[in-house]
């Protein structure tokens, strides 16, 4: 570290340029704004409104009473890896060896960061469909890679097609970072659509980081297929999942990755030196979640499904077009009719009607003209938020009210 004559760090040498150049999350500003206000109904939350089911919390309390307060093996408790392998097999017909092909991490976010750091050489290009979760691009940059955006629009259902990949392929393209069901759009891919993508992945010899954290939250009979379960994809796919969304366990920070032994072992190496292991309390709770948490999870999914229908038809009723999401707990309506930008609309909605949503641009430039509304909120709050939104739209455009 360079010091100047007064012994103070030289300002420009403090933070690496790689980190300095990444802008702070666009969500931050809305968090600050909304936090200052009283009486806000929030549709801006990216986590379940349910508390972790009691049997799962109780399992953690019990393990604390038993004195489980120590490190676990780097890759996670053996019994948890065992349960995760069983889950993959039962749910997606995927067989992973719990000893060397499964890694327990501090949330799926850590797993994605590890995968990028384990795979990316300086300058490698990572294909990232947008709008997408806020961390993909920054983590790619932190890992020394170059993010390449694949923009999607409402017309394509916010999904990429094989040609979107093909047009962005260069000799440096190495990874496709896919996430479905998608935060913020709720879009997911059918088996046929995934097969088409797999064809291109194979043709151009890409690796796939598949973030399937919302895989359990799909609605109206839509079936989730893991990317690794597609023909010839298991060896080139690292599947990422976790307990946060399906079991309402966001604060526990337990996720996992499964894939080819060499890649998992490389990820484990980074994890070993930087994290050591995920907290044992969370891992103990996660074991209980997979063993006995499915009924509670199914109840939560049934509840989300009803709320999704409520909010989608409510938004459409007030004249906002929106795609019926296949999964996650977000809708991504268009607010282009108002003539406002996403930021302007979200800010006006917050200031004038005290409803918090997140501007679509927080998830990529192509999210412009949309806002993300989370229906991880009580039915009563969704109904009240819809009433307030309708009131604002009525002021913005009197015609809307007469629809």
């Amino acid at each position: 570290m360079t010091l100047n004559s007064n012994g103070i760090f030289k300002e420009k040498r403090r933070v690496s340029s790689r980190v300095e150049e990444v802008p702070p999350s666009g969500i931050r500003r809305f968090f600050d704004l909304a936090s200052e206000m009283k009486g806000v109904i929030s549709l801006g939350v990216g986590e379940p409104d349910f508390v972790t089911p009691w049997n799962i919390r109780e399992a953690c309390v019990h393990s604390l009473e038993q004195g489980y307060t120590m490190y676990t093996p780097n890759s996670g408790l053996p019994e948890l890896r065992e349960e995760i392998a069983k889950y993959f097999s039962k749910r997606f017909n995927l067989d992973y060896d719990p000893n060397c092909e499964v890694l327990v991490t501090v949330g799926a976010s850590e797993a994605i960061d590890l995968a990028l750091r384990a795979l990316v050489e300086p300058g490698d290009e990572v294909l990232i469909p947008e709008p997408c979760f806020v961390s993909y691009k920054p983590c790619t940059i932190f890992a020394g890679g170059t993010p390449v955006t694949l923009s999607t629009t409402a017309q394509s259902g916010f999904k990429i097609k094989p040609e979107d990949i093909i047009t962005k392929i260069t000799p440096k393209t190495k990874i496709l970072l896919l996430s479905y069901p998608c935060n913020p759009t709720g879009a997911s891919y059918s088996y046929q659509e995934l097969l088409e993508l797999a064809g291109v992945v194979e043709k151009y010899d890409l690796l796939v980081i598949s973030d399937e954290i919302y895989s359990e939250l799909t609605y109206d009979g839509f079936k989730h297929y893991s990317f690794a379960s597609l023909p010839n994809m298991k060896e080139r796919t690292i599947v990422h999942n976790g307990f946060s969304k399906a079991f309402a366990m966001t604060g526990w920070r337990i996720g996992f990755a499964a894939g080819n032994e060499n890649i998992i072992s490389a990820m484990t190496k980074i994890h070993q030196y930087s994290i050591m292991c995920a907290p044992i309390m969370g891992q103990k709770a996660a074991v209980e979640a997979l063993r006995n948490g499915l009924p509670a999870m199914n109840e939560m999914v049934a509840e989300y499904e009803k709320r999704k229908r409520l909010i989608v038809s409510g938004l459409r009723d007030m004249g906002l077009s929106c795609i019926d999401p296949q999964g996650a707990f977000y809708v991504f309506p268009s607010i282009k009719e108002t003539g406002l930008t996403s930021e302007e609309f979200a800010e006006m909605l917050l200031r004038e009607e005290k409803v918090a949503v997140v501007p679509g641009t927080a998830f990529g430039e192509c999210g412009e003209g949309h806002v993300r509304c989370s229906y991880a909120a009580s039915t009563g709050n969704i109904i009240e938020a819809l009433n307030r939104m309708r009131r604002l739209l009525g002021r913005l455009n009197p015609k809307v009210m007469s629809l």
Partner: protein
Amino acid sequence: MIDQARMEILELLEKGKSLSPKHIAMMLGKEEAEVRKIIKELKEEKIILKHKTIIDWEKAGRETVEAVIDVRVSPQRDVGFDVVASKIYRFPEVKSVYLMSGTYDLSVVVEGKNMKDVALFVAEKLATIENVLSTTTHFRLKKYKEDGIFFTGENEDNRMVVSP
């Protein structure tokens, strides 16, 4: 045969705070008119009996006492416990009556202004009914949970207002 739509509507009505037929229709992907029709039928068939609000009366400032009374009854030929039960549940002081398995027969919940009130009701009205053999009165001291609702602060939303 269980009718799926009827079950879903009943579940929503039981859980949801004053959900309108319009919102129920939106949530189930049905027409409002159909939902109204089903609710009307359910009321006519006495499947939906009444809408109830769960109130923390203590917090509201009204002091009442509640007692659970174990009642032993000698059953009667042909009617079993039903006649005695009906003699008990007709008293307005009685909030609910259940036929139980085990060491006693009827579980009776009684509400009164104070303990004396309840004790008098048991001694004068309940214990004197023909075929009632004995009563054991337990006063409720504190309510933790009723109909799935916690009476403590645990139902609050502690999440950050906006998160990715």
